[in-house]
């Protein structure tokens, strides 16, 4: 199913040596043995993951288009690393990340009300509400009320504590290691090249959902990492979805990718009317020509979306309008809150609607996809409970579950390192 022989790959795809590998070759690399579930069940493994993965790896925390203007910021809670992160665009236009911690006594500089909070820094400063210490959006401590009463205060050393922050294709990543072991570009490697070039930043119209799941984060990640479940789990929301094929697996260092092909579903009557507003024009409709050349390299007409697994907790499903009507891409992210609790975030990205009809058509697509996510998330707490029951020690994985096998193997490798 990964065979490229007899086809003419799209120009540029020849640069990717990961393409066109056979199932046999991937089986030979990853094995076909069952995979232990102990890494999901054991709280000690989670503690190791916090230390050896989440505190040392590049993590996507924001996008460029979430904080487009100088002074725009996002506060992201990272329970997995016991910190709150302030991502802010400085007056020089540069995005930086800081621990959201006042260097006075540790209070949060920017208070937040949820797992993530957006705001705008007035005059390019943020000030701690506890005692009014003022920091520039590029980090330095600018002023301290009653400074003379401290006797001695070296303000030059008391700026916000900066976190390594780099951007790829508009996605903003941080790395809590000081310094990181590698650059973001080196970390993403060929994956960054495979997915580069799509105009992600043009799809700024987002519908975002989140929920807290009572399960280990890898249960949620794995549930969204395979297409084997589509005909069963989605029998309700995607009736008649035919010819689902999850193939074209690419193993790219700690990352992996794959493709969902399919003939799509027979649209319900209302969907046909709504979708007609999105699929029949170049602004929202299928744009396979915009896909990077290594994605759908043979230009199959039944391409639905690319499904990668970006180490350790991020998925970008790149559709370019070819799958769900009008969806440019959608993302999932899985944030551990503790060993058995996970914050899931799912976001559908569209190009901005140009009129009210396009907007309601997007809302219909979004509702269908949200409802499919409700079907997906239905399994996760049950799966985790089942694993905790202790009656199975292994997952049995088939070929469409290669991404799970690959991810589990990478997690093991990082914990051993």
């Amino acid at each position, binding site marked *: 199913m990964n065979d490229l022989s007899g086809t003419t790959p799209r120009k540029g795809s020849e640069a990717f040596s990961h393409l066109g590998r056979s199932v046999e070759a991937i089986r030979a690399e990853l094995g076909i043995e069952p995979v232990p579930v102990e890494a999901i069940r054991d709280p000690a493994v989670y503690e190791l993951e916090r230390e050896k993965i989440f505190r040392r790896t590049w993590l996507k925390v924001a996008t460029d*288009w*979430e904080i487009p203007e100088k002074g725009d910021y996002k506060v992201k809670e990272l329970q997995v690393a016991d910190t709150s992160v302030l991502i802010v665009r400085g007056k020089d236009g540069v995005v930086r990340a800081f621990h959201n911690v006042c260097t006075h006594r540790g209070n949060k500089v920017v208070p937040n009300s949820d797992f993530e909070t*957006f705001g705008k820094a007035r005059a390019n400063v943020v000030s701690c509400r506890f005692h009014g210490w003022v920091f520039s959006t590029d980090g330095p401590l600018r002023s301290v009320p009653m400074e003379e009463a401290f006797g001695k205060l070296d303000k030059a050393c008391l700026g916000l504590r900066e976190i390594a922050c780099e951007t790829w294709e508009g996605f903003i990543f941080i790395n809590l290691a000081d310094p990181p072991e590698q650059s973001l570009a080196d970390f993403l490697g060929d994956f960054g090249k495979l997915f580069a070039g799509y105009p992600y930043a043009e799809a*700024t*119209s*987002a*519908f*975002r*959902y*989140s*929920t*807290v799941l009572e399960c280990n984060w890898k249960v949620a990640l794995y549930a969204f990492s395979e297409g084997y479940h589509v005909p069963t*789990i989605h029998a*309700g*929301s995607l*009736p008649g979805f035919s010819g689902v094929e999850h193939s074209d697996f690419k193993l790219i260092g700690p990352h992996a990718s794959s493709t969902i092909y399919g003939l799509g579903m027979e649209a*319900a*009557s*209302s*969907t046909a*009317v*709504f979708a007609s*507003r999105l699929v029949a024009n170049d602004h929202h409709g299928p744009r396979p020509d915009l896909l990077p050349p290594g994605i759908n390299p043979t230009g199959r007409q039944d391409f639905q979306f690319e499904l990668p697994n970006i180490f350790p907790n991020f998925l970008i499903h790149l559709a370019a309008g070819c799958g769900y009507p009008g969806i440019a891409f959608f993302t999932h992210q899985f944030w551990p809150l503790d060993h058995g609790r996970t914050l899931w975030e799912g976001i559908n*990205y569209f190009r*901005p*609607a140009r*009129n*009210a*009809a*396009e*907007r*309601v*058509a997007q*809302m*219909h697509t979004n*509702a*269908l996809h*949200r*409802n499919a*996510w*409700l*079907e*997906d*998330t*239905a399994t*996760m707490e049950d799966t985790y409970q089942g694993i905790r029951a202790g009656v199975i020690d292994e997952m049995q994985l088939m070929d469409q579950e290669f991404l799970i096998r690959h991810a589990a193997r990478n997690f093991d490798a990082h914990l051993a390192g």
Partner: protein
Amino acid sequence: MTDTVTLPGRFEDLAPLVATWARPTENARSKIRWSAGPEDFSDFYEVMLPRLPEILDYLATVPLEGMDEADTNLFCLAAAFAEAAPHHELYGGSADVPFSFSARRFVPGHGDVPSWETGRN
């Protein structure tokens, strides 16, 4: 109630549906949907589906910014139908997606933002 609802001229007959279904935010529309029964979905569907092409043709001429009250009402009604139609077409009239996670536990980041505002993304 329907006397106070304004709609663009040729859609004035839909005013009773506006009172029942049309709300500006996803959270408000979800609450209405969650308390609806099969007949509610069916009645809504039977009226709206035949009118949908005409409604969308009209809304295609309406910019999202600066909608007047009549256009806003029609937009909110179409939005409600966009979200409610699958319950009639796919879920047998159930307010819940069958065999699914609780929709009440899904938090839309945009849930309280009027749906014509694309807001922060």
